[in-house]
Every structure is written in C-alpha cells, then in structure tokens.
C-alpha cells in the first residue's frame, strides 16, 4: 500500500476570518423583544396565580423575594438578547455559508453548500409582522450540524433558498 503524507501550504486557502459579515435585520430585535415581553408577562401571571392559589405562599416577604428574583432574571434576559444580537451575523461565499453567533459563548459555524441536503424558510407571527425570516440548512449530520440563521430579509431568504437548491441540483451529489 502506497501512503504519502505531503506537507500542505495554507497560504492559498481563503480564510473565514477575512469575510464580510452581514448583520441580521433590525426587525429581529423587535421580534425578540416582543417575544421576551410576552413570555415574561405569562411567567409573572403564572407566578402570581400559583402564589394566590397555594396556601401559605401569599405573604409579603415571599412575594417580594419571588418578584425580585423574577425581575432580575427578566432584566438579564433582555440584556442578553440585546447583547447577542450585536454578534449575530452571516456571510455567504461562493462555496459555503458562515454564521456567527453568541455573546458569552461565541461560535462561527460553516456549512459548505455541497453538504446541504435541503432547506426551509420559516417565519412566526412576529417575524411576519416585522418582515424577518429564518432559514435552516439541513445536513446529514443531524440537528447539531445544521445551521439556523434568523433575521433575514424575506427577499434574501427566498433568494438564498433558491440559490442553494440550484447548487444542489447542479452538484447532484448525495452523501
């Protein structure tokens, strides 16, 4: 068996650090903050209901402690949403797509287009109102290997989906 182990020069290989990052649409911030508000209204209401109906919990000191904890978590959640949106961005290159996310735990995920099995574009109620879409690229690696890019302009999402599908048809490859 012949086995070679030649050295490789990385000089000619494009670096993912030199890409132009495109931030997500501003509408995503509104979607996230509206969603945040709805969830926390529900959480506060459920907490109040639980304290009201369970005997022994309806006391000033317990109520204030619960309120303080929830208010802190609520504020931190809002702060976290705003911070994380600053880092969310994506970049489309000729052969792959990159997605950057995370505030405390940062990550950059890259998926080559010839590894994409199929894709879907979705929008929730708030997403449709504020004109943002999410695109999910599916690979054979399962959920952890897939990428979900939120905060795309509707036209961008549709164009990207079509472009990826054209690439799939051209490549015609299966894993």
């Amino acid at each position, binding site marked *: 068996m012949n086995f070679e*182990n030649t050295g490789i020069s990385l000089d000619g290989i*494009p670096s*993912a650090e030199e890409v132009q990052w495109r931030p997500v649409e501003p509408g995503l911030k509104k979607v996230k903050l509206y969603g945040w508000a709805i969830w926390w209204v529900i959480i506060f209401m459920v907490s109040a209901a639980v304290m009201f*109906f369970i005997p022994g919990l309806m006391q000033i000191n317990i109520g204030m402690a619960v309120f303080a904890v929830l208010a802190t978590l609520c504020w931190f959640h809002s702060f976290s949403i705003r911070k994380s949106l600053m880092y969310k961005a994506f970049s489309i290159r000729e052969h792959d797509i990159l997605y950057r996310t995370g505030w405390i*735990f940062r*990550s950059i995920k890259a998926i*080559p287009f*010839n590894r994409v099995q*199929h894709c879907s574009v979705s929008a929730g109620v708030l997403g449709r109102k504020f004109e943002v879409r999410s695109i999910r690229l599916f690979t054979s690696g399962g959920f952890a290997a897939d990428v979900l890019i939120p905060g795309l302009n509707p036209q961008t999402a549709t164009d990207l989906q079509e472009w990826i599908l054209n690439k799939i048809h051209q490549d015609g*490859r299966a894993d």
Partner: protein
Amino acid sequence: MEEQIDFSKPQRQPIQAIVQALLKSFASALKSIWPFALAYIFNLKSQDNPRKNTVWLILMLGLSAFIVGYTLIEFFYLRFMIRDKELVIKKGFFIKRELVIPFEKIQAIHLDRDWLQRLLGIAKVSIDTPGTTHTEERFFLTNSMAKALRDAILNQPISHTVSESAEEAHLPVINLSGKDLFKLGISANFLKAMLVLLGFAIARADDLSGITGKTSWDWVEWIEEKTAGGTVLLIASGITIILVVSILISFGLVILKYGNFSMLQTTKGFHIRSGLINVREKLVPFKKVQFISWEANWIRRHIPYYLFHFHIIGDHEISDKWRIAVPVTRPAFFPLLFQHYHPELPKGTPFLTMSGAYVGRNILYAAVFSIAAILISWLLGWEQALWLGVIFPLWVIRSIIHRKNFKAAISTEAIQINHSIFSKSHSLLRWDKVVSVLVKQNIFQRHRRLATLVLFTGGGKVELPYIQLSDANRLRDYALYKVED
C-alpha cells in the same frame, strides 16, 4: 379509472385524515393534562377548597382545547406540491414554514397503513433524507394519491443505499475464537457493572422499604455498624464478593453481546453479525462510513484488545445499546478494517496538542464543584461531607492525563485524534467527510486566544478542545477547502 393528480398545484391532506389528526391531538392532550386531572380528582375527594376544583377544570379544558385547536389548524394549513424536481411542503399557521427537498436528496418514501388508516382509506407518507434516522416530513394522503406521489418522486434518479446481490462473494474477515471471547469477557469494565449493580440494589432497597422498614440509607448505616465492629478479613471478603459478582456480570454481558460474532466483506461493504441470543446484524457500506474510532478500556489496553467502531450516516441518533463494535483481538485485523477508509496516520505526522490552560480551567471548575458539593451535603446534615473533597484531586488528575495524551495528527487527507484518558481512544476522520465545521469559544478561551474546533459528519462529530484559535481557524478553512476539492 385512476384520478390524475396535478402535483404542480398545491395539494392538501384529505378530509378523512382529520380523524387521525384529532386522535393524535387527543392523545397529546391527555399526556399534557394528566397532572391536572390527578389534582382535580384528589381535590374533589378532599373537598377542602371548591374554588381549586374550578381552577383545575378550567386549566384542563383550556389546555385540551388549545392542543386540539392547534392540531386542527396545523392540519388545515399543510400543503405540498412538486416544483422543478423538488418536493415543496408548506405548513404552519402561527409559524409558517416552507420546506424544500430536492428529489436527489430523498433517500426513501415510506407508505404505512395501520388499522385505522386502512379503515379511513388513507396512508401515512414519510419522507427520508440521508443522515437522520427520523423522517424529515410526514403527512397523510388517500391511498391512490400517496402512490401517485411516490411514483412521481421515485421516477426521478434518487440516491440509493447499498444493496447486496445474492451473487456477491462474502469473504470472512474476523471471527472470534473461544479464547478471544473469554479474554474479551474477562477484560470487560467491571467497575461499570459494579456501579450499575449498586444503583440497582439502592433502587430495589427503596422500593422494598415499605416491607422491610428500611430505606437504602438505613441499609448503608446498618452495614457501617456491622463492619465497624468487624475484622479486616470480613471487610475484605465483602469487597471481594462484590468484585467477583461484578466481574461475572460484565463477563456474561460481553458473552451475550459478542457470542457468535462474525464479520464478512463484500465488494461494497462489511456485514457484521453479533449476539448469542439476541442477534444483531449491521451492513456497513464503505461509502457511508463517515469516520472510524477504536478504543480499549483501562484493562484491555494492557492486552491489547480494542473495540473498533464504524460511524456511518445516521449513527449519532442510535443509542449505544444498538451499536455494534468490532472486537479487534489481533493487530493483524487493523489493516483489514482501515483499508477501505484510510490508513492509520504514521508516527511522524505533525500534530497539535491541547493548551495547558485546559488544566487551569479544570482546576477552577473542580474547586468550585467540590466546595459546592461539600457545603450542600453539610447543610443537608451529612457530617462526613469533607470526604467529597476527593472529587477535586480526581478531577484535576483526569484533566492532566487527558491533556497529556491528547494529540491531533494532521495529514493532507485525514485527521487522527488521540483522546485517551484512562482508556485508550482514537478517532480517524477524512477531511472530505466533514459536513459542517464549528469554532467555539467560552469566556476563558477568548481571553487566552484558544478555541474548540468541532468537525461534524453524517455519523457524529469529532472535537479538538482547547487548541490555539489560529490553528482552529486554519483547520476550519482547510476542511472547507477539502470538502470542495
């Protein structure tokens, strides 16, 4: 005469399938409301707070109505069509989703009919794509419509899984002799069996506490009392008995798993068969192998015997119970297993190692965890909580060994990782099998310009933790280049 269906126009699920959808939603509603139902029934019996009854009833009815309503809405808002050799599925009312699956990515279309579906004249259509064991999409159609859709898609070229013809020669590759099986059994990880045995004993002791009057904690104190007054011989005998039972159990489990093991080779893949009573068979097509790994536990590494794994597409979704490993009881087996994937990288291959900061981080985590465990146990009344401090040195020693052993050898075609700790463990991945790449950093890593590189494949992932950020980025770029090459 068969109806001609124009799949280029959006189609809906037939109205009779609504019965199926309703039944499914009732089942989901029952799963969700059973705690409320129990609370309602108990409260009815006690009758101490009639207002509570009303609340539970409202919650039950509200939740059920929501689930049933949501299911019905999702049912009516599902449409599908065929467009330019793609299956397009649009679904959802609150969250609208458009899923597009090119025909060449559809691996299989299943049509299933249980008794209810046969009664209703409908079939469940399940669409599979490579890489996941669960179906990508599922909906219900009339029998004729389901067949017409399947024919419309399958008339196009589709990727197929390997099928073996009866004429293909099956060459034996590996067979286990009685001696091999015995050594494999005796070198099994009996510590794991011992822990499982202890866990089982504790659970049963608690179950029988109603009869015996003693919980598992009471039994531990009883044993402490008996051994405190006992001799060294008594204590040693007790420990020996537990060890012997654990070894026998792990030995028996290995025999059951690897008895009658055989591995045959065809032109397209390996055929592996294993199991003394429950026989499992696995076809490993060469082209579907994503990466390979081999490991030897802390006993077997001294023999050495290894367990070799082929990670094929969809493997990451199978539980360990259903995975079949190949016992490598002779070094001569390795080339046979490597030959259709990639040879093992030679010793002189350039390699990366883990940063020393990995140990520093683990010292911090171990200290915090140990102090928290001691404090919580002490607050809960355990006087000897300080014993939990042993977690700290064990954790740190483990991380030191992990860092010392970790090596990622890199060649133009593949990467081989040694991630041994107390056992020996290696993985070998070809660059062209990568499907996506992730470079991630926590706060600690960012501060020190380090990162964790994760290479995803169709059969699982391979990680390189705590390497230099520059190296992680370069490897990512190289992987993307090789995938395209």
